[in-house]
């Protein structure tokens, strides 16, 4: 129990870019703990000899030829933008990151 505490959820919320209040973090921690507890058995079922399946129907080498197709107009591209300027999407300041 309590593997997922408030600090852990706060870190996950930061990774997932969702702002959460202290109460939300506590509530989420409680709910996730129950859920994770109930699905934990999954990690004990399959041994090393069982391969992982990431696609239900296995396909390989699905390619596109290198031929240009239809593009959006600048107007279409920006049609849903919350804010735009000079044909580009406008976003608030990005403080010192990469």
């Amino acid at each position, binding site marked *: 129990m309590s593997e997922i505490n408030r600090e852990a959820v706060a870190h996950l919320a930061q990774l997932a870019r969702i702002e959460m209040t202290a109460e939300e973090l506590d509530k989420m921690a409680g709910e996730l703990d129950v859920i994770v507890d109930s*699905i934990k058995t999954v990690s004990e079922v399959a041994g090393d000899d069982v391969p992982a399946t990431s696609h239900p129907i296995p396909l390989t080498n*699905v390619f596109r030829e290198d031929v240009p197709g239809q593009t959006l107009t600048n107007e279409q591209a920006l049609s849903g933008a*919350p804010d735009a300027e000079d044909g580009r999407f406008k976003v608030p300041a990005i403080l010192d990151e990469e």
Partner: protein
Amino acid sequence: MNELITHSAAELAAKLAAKEVSAVEVVQAHLDRIAEVDGEVNAFLHVNTEEALAVATEVDTARAAGGAEAGRLHGLAGVPIAIKDLIVTIGQPTTAGSAMLRGWMSPYDATVIQKIRAAKMPMLGKTNLDEFAMGSSTEHSAYGPTRNPWDLDRIPGGSGGGSAAAVAAYEAPLALGTDTGGSIRQPAAVTGSVGVKPTYGGVSRYGAIAMASSLDQIGPVSRTVLDSALLHEVIGGHDPADSTSLTDPVGALAEAARTGNVAGMRIGVVRELQGEGYDAGVQQRFDESLELLRGAGAEIVEVSCPNFKYALGAYYLIMPSEASSNLAKFDGVRYGLRVLPEDAPLTIERVMGASRAAGFGDEVKRRIILGTYALSAGYYDAYYGSAQKVRTLVQRDFDAAFAQADVLISPTAPTTAFKLGEKLDDPLAMYLNDVATIPANLAGVPGISVPGGLAGGLPVGIQFLAPAREDARLYRAGAALEKLLEDKWGGPLLAQAPVLGGVK
């Protein structure tokens, strides 16, 4: 209530072809029905009146012109359809049931929408769903819950409750749904309608807003098995825009539905998908269906899929993991809700955090956080990696079962429709609704839910599962059971549903 709306899509198509009725009349009858009952049902988030009538007019004009132009019309031309609001459409808002996309207009059409347009099927509008298809009750919609036409205090299933309710309430003869863990089949079961999850890759996912890419599949929703087959033939087939799309031909699905014969068919009862956890009433209807099928010449065998008991757990790791990634794009930069935090500093990081906090509902946040957890450093192998291995085991169970049986059978959902709000605060109880539908998504195999009768006055669904690429078997078995039951009932199950919108 206009008599026209009670007809199946196949019947409407026949009447249109025979010019007994015009497409405009058909569309108008459904628009009238929506106006009449959707205030109660809330199946539609958007009604596409003008465009639907315009397409109907085109069909009528072409048909009136006769000759080659009329000959080019698709068999379902003029038969209206409702679209789950997870599928993007030009000209109508696409919201995914989320405040994040309130009023968002897509600049492109999903591949299935292009096919619907090519067939000249008038789109009646967009139907309600759990936000980003996350839920089993359509209560997690930012636009209010959809109600079950059988009992307006109950849930219509989810996430595709809007499409199922629209069809069950005669607001549309056909609808499109999406099924990630049962979101087409479980709503069909609890509303007394038909829903099909095709083989993974059988219908293009291009333009369906992704929840869990390796599980999602678009499929038909209808009142009859034949109608689903007809719609499946419209939307199915290879799409170069979807790398997971199969190149197989769609197959003669409608023909299989018309044949509807189970004589000599081996039907496998999945031991793990019945008994404990399944309502007595659900189990009773299921057992009766087995008897009918046996009587019609099917060979009923019992099969065991021992790893199905881990399917729910694996699903609730894979689905939120993929969803956490797929929903990262909703950040208030290119489209959708942008919320500025009230206090400084106004960094993009904080704007994204505030936008996602305001744009997503509780269930979506829960799954994103769960998925982020399952993928994070140090947990990946134990959670996501292990779940993908369980997926292999579930597939092996299916392989073994299909060595003994042509199709498998189970109840679609363990219970009938529960009351609105009943499970809203208990995510685990909500998740259990999908216990019988999830294995098919994990393995990519197709499944259908057909009405199996009533328990406590509420519909029960019977699910058939077939091997990958053998969707036709679902239609053959499903149509056979449908006929056996309707013969017994003296008509379709929905004829027993209470009248909506007062007596008119």
